[in-house]
């Protein structure tokens, strides 16, 4: 499906969710609770067959966080983006999509390392780049460090 068709399909299939588009992808906004069933449906439905999570990341939209999932299909070669807003800044938590795509394993380790978002049901959540005793999460907007020299 091309982008406009995919956007129309998403609007028909998920009438409660907000659908937007960027220059490249159609965007589907979800809540924390409906994330896993909708992702499983997107992966298994014969119309979409999104069988590959090619990027997972987070954005700090101070004060809330935004989880971003990029999906692609190796059958139809179409892409889309799924976004989830996390309101709780003190203790952000979301269900891991490891049960849907195993590629999420290292992506979620990295997001936990740099943003401090905790993933439930993740098999091995740990600090992947920084040392274990590191204090704070460097990619947050309010991160403070004495070693940073600013211009």
């Amino acid at each position, binding site marked *: 499906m091309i982008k406009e068709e995919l956007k129309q399909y998403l609007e028909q299939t998920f009438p409660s969710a907000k659908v937007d588009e960027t220059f490249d992808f159609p965007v589907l906004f979800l809540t924390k609770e409906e994330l896993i069933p909708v992702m499983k449906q997107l992966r298994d439905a014969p119309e979409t067959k999104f069988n590959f999570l090619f990027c997972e990341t987070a954005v700090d939209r101070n004060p809330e966080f935004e989880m971003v999932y990029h999906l692609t299909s190796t059958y139809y070669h179409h892409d889309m983006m799924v976004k989830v807003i996390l309101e709780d800044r003190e203790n952000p938590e979301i269900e891991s999509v490891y049960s849907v795509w195993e590629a999420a394993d290292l992506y979620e380790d990295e997001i936990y390392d740099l943003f401090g978002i905790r993933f439930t049901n993740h098999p091995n959540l740990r600090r992947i780049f920084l*040392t274990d005793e590191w204090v704070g999460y460097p990619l947050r907007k309010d991160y403070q460090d004495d*070693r940073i020299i600013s211009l």
Partner: protein
Amino acid sequence: MDVKKEYIPEFDGDLYKDEFGRTNFIVTTIDKIANWGRSNSPWPLSFGTSCCAIELMSTVSAKYDWSRFGFEVMRASPRQCDVIVVAGTITYKMAPVLKRLYDQMPDPKYVIAMGACAVSGGPFYYNSYAVLRGVDNIIPVDVYIPGCPPRPESLIHGMMTLQEKIRKSKAYVIQKPKKNKEEDK
């Protein structure tokens, strides 16, 4: 006017000649012969952390071929190395590893800081939470090579500068034992 004559020690070379009339020895100093050996075979550690390591590999391989100058034996163990070329960004997570590698090398040991990251932090000097600002914060550096990354020619020039430094060093300094003044009295 007195002209100082060159002092030539008396030396009976005939005593040391073999049956064909050849003498088979040379005269030199320990410093010169030790520095000659050391400067022409510094073994580098195969250590590289980012894009400078690509230039390092290019310098090792056939086109630039630094074995022309005697650096060819790249060692995988710091216990067999003389020189460590710090090629690339050193993060705070990597810094203790680099310090341990340096400590494991046998004396005399030399360090070359290759590229802007190893010299000063380079492009990561501002607004970075993870990068060490120059390896001279943790280990002593002999030669600094600027560039991002340096060309293989500059790396070879840096290695030849290190060779010059080794040739000028004192290899063996014999220290006289200090006299104990109280015993003399």
